[in-house]
């Protein structure tokens, strides 16, 4: 029961934040629709702004429902203090997320600048090793074999250009 209450609390808080973001997004879309050219000779019903405006209004209504619901369920009590922020940043899950995303972003940055096989092998080796997927030599073999195999199959056999 306690776990369920904690999960419900987290959901309500998430709903509160998400609904604000979605409301802001729908208002932005509505604004962009309002300033879009109308092409009136086609008729107002054919204006390119009409469908996005319609769906942005629907989104606004739904997001408002979620917002009101989260307030009723006290999701606005976010308790964002120094201790909570510190615990959040230090948690294992957040650290792993930052690590995995960091590796992906470095890979993306170097893609096209370094040969695909070398870059992919390096990425695979580092990720498998840092996340303790295998020993260093197994990681190395898997990384090189996978990168080379993918390159051969796609670029040589299927003539699909790789980045």
């Amino acid at each position, binding site marked *: 029961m306690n776990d369920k209450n904690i999960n419900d609390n987290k959901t309500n808080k998430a709903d509160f934040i998400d609904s604000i973001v979605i409301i802001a997004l729908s208002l932005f879309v509505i604004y962009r629709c309002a300033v879009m050219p109308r092409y009136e000779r086609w008729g107002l019903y*054919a204006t*390119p702004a009409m469908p996005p405006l319609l769906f942005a209004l629907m989104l606004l209504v739904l997001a408002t429902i*979620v917002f009101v619901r989260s307030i009723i369920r006290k999701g606005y009590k976010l308790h964002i203090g120094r201790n909570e922020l510190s615990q959040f940043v230090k948690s294992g899950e957040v650290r*792993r997320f930052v690590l995995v995303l960091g590796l992906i972003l470095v890979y993306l940055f170097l*893609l096209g600048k370094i040969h695909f096989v070398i870059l992919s092998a390096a*990425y695979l080796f580092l990720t498998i090793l840092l996340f303790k997927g*295998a020993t260093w030599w197994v990681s190395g073999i898997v990384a090189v074999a996978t990168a080379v195999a993918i390159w051969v199959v796609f670029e040589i056999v299927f003539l699909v250009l790789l980045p």
Partner: protein
Amino acid sequence: MGIIYLFQNIGRLFSPINLITVLLACQLGILFGMLPGLTATMGIALLTTITFKWSTGNAIMTLLAIYVGAIYGGSRSAILLNIPGTPAAAATCLDGYPLAQSGRGAEAIGLATTSSFFGSFIGLLALSLFTPVLGNLALDFKSFEMFWLAVFGVAICGNLTAPKDPIKGWISGILGILLAFCGMEAIQGHPRFTFGVLDLYSGFSLIPVMVGTYGLAEILLNLTAGQKKQVITEIGKVMPQLSRLIKHWFTIIRSGIIGIFIGLVPGVGESIAAYVSYDFSKRASKHPDEYGKGSVEGLIAAETANNACTGGALIPVLSLAIPGSAPAAVLLAALWLHNVRPGPLIMIENPNYIYEFSAMFFYASVAMLILGLLIVKPLLKILQLKNALLMPIIFIFCIVGTYAINGRLFDIKVMIIFGVIGFIMRKHGYPVAPLVLALILGPMVDENLRRGLILTNGDFLPFVRSPICIVLVVAIFFTLFGRTKPVKIALRFVFKPVTLLISVVKRKKKI
């Protein structure tokens, strides 16, 4: 007579070379379908170039085998990894992955394979016997009907994938529709929501968004969760029991018919067929609570429909030269390249071709069944690999698959952005399936709504006039509001005389 011609062509095409070709092509298709980002469309497109100089019969047989194999192959990664290899397998994740997690992966793959075969077989019967008749039905879908069908697809997907909180499913769907509006729109050519980014003029491609929200999000979820890998201690029987399949015979036939009719409608595709069939199956089921938690019935419904849809999608290809899905579009191009002229005159110019084509489809379906049941146990070993070893490899395949579509680094950036968005959505209880499905259906919604209104000079009445439109509007209404109290009370009141009559008849029978 049609059945006789079909069997004659099956016999005529029976040769060792054809069998080997079909088996190899089908296996390649399964691999394409399994790997995230490598879709049936890409497989057919790649092999079209390789088979260009082959004889027409061999080439088309190869391409059909890839099509059938790839649509089925998506279910494997959906079941084993919760990452659908193709959009068609998105509904398979709902029950296939929970089955695999509970140690019933072999059973799930066996059921998916046999259901896919039955679906293909039902599609084959429709293709060979009813092509001219069903082809005309596709013509009844005009702008008004297409608009409502697209809205229905999004609404139903939102409901199914967020049963406890459908509002989140609908929010996800509408976000997908808004994403689909990015880029140069089709009627006035005005660029919407591009913010000066040239790459956005063509809008968001489906594959980077799908690979990101499903593939990369799953990778992020698994790697951030740490080494929590469920080890399957027992690999069970792959071949499903006949009694189990017979028990669900009605689900198979209903899903097959749904798949065929949705495949008939141009541009709709296998993913919607799977979701609609899943929804019908859930509503009719005696155990709807099991859906989403490893329901065998749900898995059978989704897989039968998406493979029946391949047959259905080929009906307008042959009879009208209009593709019923994206892979069918590439297949149509391949037919033209090989001097086959599909269209309304095919029954006059080349009437035997429909049966020859159906015979090829038959061989492709049988190859899918054999290969699908054979190589299962080694695949299940994938589930026993550590996340830290498996997920980075899948990431590289995601990169390759995403880049291969358009050759743009922009697509990879989109994939990564949507990977993070998908990760956050799943953490916060928002399903990603409606977002991806709405990205497919968004252009249908936009173009058909505005085209319909242009044709009627702004009059909305034709949108609710035709029988197909009325059925779809009613279906949307019940999908969105069917579970609310006022609607339930109203339905009970309307159907009270009928339920009273049924209870009286039952009492009389007991007496």
